[in-house]
């Protein structure tokens, strides 16, 4: 199920790590990058690939919040609702984005394009409020620029 390229990456990783357990987090990242989220089947597959029990992979995937245990949209929008952003109304931004996209928090739009969730401090508190679309940061959010940020993804 892993692409050729990812299989190669995994092989390279195996050389770096002294135990197979230590591969759990990086292997799950590879899987998440390729499949977008981690289903139980994917976790089983990962467990086989790195020869550790499924239970172990499952407990790691459940412990860490940034592993998606549910499908996410092609554009996964994560809004920081931590302290500095909250002081500058980020919770309203979440509501605004959800209304705009017609989707609830932690769910995906029917076309599979967007999902919205809250995230802890992104370390951009100086330019709060902040959101992340996949790996890209967008800061100093206002109702107006959110609109153009979302639009820019549909291009």
């Amino acid at each position, binding site marked *: 199920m892993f692409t050729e390229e990812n299989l190669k990456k995994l092989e390279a990783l195996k050389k770096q790590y002294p135990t197979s357990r230590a591969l759990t987090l990086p292997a799950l990242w590879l899987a998440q990058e390729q499949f977008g989220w981690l289903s139980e089947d994917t976790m089983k597959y990962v467990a086989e690939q790195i020869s550790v029990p499924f239970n*172990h992979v499952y*407990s790691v995937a459940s412990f*860490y919040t*940034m592993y998606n245990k549910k499908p996410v949209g092609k554009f996964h929008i994560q809004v920081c609702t931590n302290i*500095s952003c909250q002081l500058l109304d980020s919770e309203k931004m979440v509501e605004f984005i959800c209304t705009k996209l017609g989707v609830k928090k932690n769910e995906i739009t029917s076309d599979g394009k967007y999902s919205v969730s809250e995230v802890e401090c992104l*370390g951009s*508190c100086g*330019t*709060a409020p902040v959101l992340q679309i996949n790996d890209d*940061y967008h800061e100093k959010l206002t109702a107006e620029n959110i609109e153009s940020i979302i639009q820019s993804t549909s291009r």
Partner: protein
Amino acid sequence: MKNYRLQLMVCAGTGCVSNHSFEIKDALEKEIEKQNLQNEAQVVLTGCNGFCGAGPLLVVQPDGIFYQLLKTTDIPLLVQEHLIKGRPVKKLLYTPPEEKIPIPKMMDIPFFSDQTLIALRNRGLIDPENIEDYIARGGYKALAKVLTSMTPDEVLAEIKASGLRGRGGGGFPTGVKWETCKRAHGDEKYVICNADEGDPGAFMDRSIIEGDPHAVIEGMIIGAYAIENVRQGYIYVRMEYPLAIKRFQIAIKQAREYGLLGENIFDKGFNFDIEVRRGAGAFVCGESTALMASIEGRPGEPRAKYIHTVEKGLWERPTCLNNVETWVNVPQIILKGSKWFTSIGTGDVSIDPWGGSKGTKVFSLAGKVNNTGLVEVPMGITLREIIYIIGGGIRDGKKFKAVQTGGPSGGFIPESMLDLTVDFEELTKVGSMMGSGGMVVTDEGNCMVDMAKYFLKFTQDESCGKCIPCREGTKRMLDILEKITNGDGTEEDLILLEELSNMIVESSLCALGGSAPNPVLTTLKYFREEYEAHVNDKKCPARICCQLNTYTIDEKICLEIGHGCDVCKKYCPDGAIIGEIKKVHYIDPAKCSKCGACYDVCNFNAVNIQ
């Protein structure tokens, strides 16, 4: 390298990048070509300058002229005026709030001039993706000095003498930690850099890594050499920082190419390499034992620390874990000497390593101050200087209420204590802590009960659940705070909050639980009257806790100024607003759920909160 008459340093820290600094770079390059200045002016991308609130930023060297809030449309004028005619463009310079005359030079702006740079010494001056830039600024010189002229013991002695203390929160003396690790049995040891930085409101480490990744690496190599028997180092970076991860990977690759990492470094028979490990979104993984569990591929649960990680850490081997900022200080101490380092800061560390706070501390200033961003100040500076001089005071002319230091483990410090000097001991004394350096400023519009609730909710969410006092105790406390902000609190609840706090502090397994009550305890201590107002008068003085408020519409304003615009009615989730367009609107108190939406949406301030 070619010499240019002018260097245009475009900030490419995350803050500026998200404010389109790459477009500024492209526009500058285009315009320079258009004006045929390619041989005179060079555009360079740098790491974060720290003045994130004013991005995108540009500094024109060698004069250090500082431009802010740039737009691509400003560029032709800037090139024409400054690059060709040599006249800085006034309207693009920084003007202090409430003043009229702009300050052209970066080093004359109070935000920058009152700082002392050690950890951030290269900020804005180098391209972080280019090792040559780092070397040109004296980078890897400390490593050369160590490997060619110092024994591991001499290096350790120098760090011990400097009095450097951990910048990751606890302020543990670095030299003492290194020494214990060095003495521990084992011929395979590890050094780790903690770049998990999960404290809300903190972004120092991110900026350091993104702006100067080689400095961290150099510090770690020196540490590995001093501790001995260390062949592998790890950098644990939180997944939320994609750019920091990338910069580290580039830097490590370059260091390997230059023979600074790997086998036989500097031909001295010394082998050491570093790898990056990514976290996956768990605040508790910043805690030392949880972090090591995570590198080992397990859920990040802390363990009891009767056995120290310096003796049995990663894979049960002696492990020395230090914070990003701690590592970055190391090369400078080696180069300039421990005497120089101890000349900055407070107290005396010559006998007792806990006897003072030496050097500088980087703080990230966020919340309601004018100049949000990253500042590095000497230990011993006052909070007032940081907030009012460097931070430029409170936004929108509002009144200061409290400053929160130390994130969810720290506390709120009131106005009366603003002249407190910033060092490890002083901050702990007042119930807060240095923490990793987050500094969040709140103003009169913030409710302290609500803020305490906020932080507790964070720790409650992030509690790993392994021990009961932290898992259940914080839940109980949160319930009580909810009750208070909903107007159902009693005097007994305040006492119960204190009792629960003490229980959690005393019996939690790790410091996450152990310090979780601090935000509640400090607000109870310094802002008790706000709690009492919620409990006794059923009022929120800052009008934040909606449930305690009564909403009414000022008929006159609604009709005469707002012309009964009807907007509030559309937003009211409970159909509590009665009225038609162009007529007076009323709120039916029986239906109103006190959500506060009408207050937020009325453009004419016709909705009153009591």
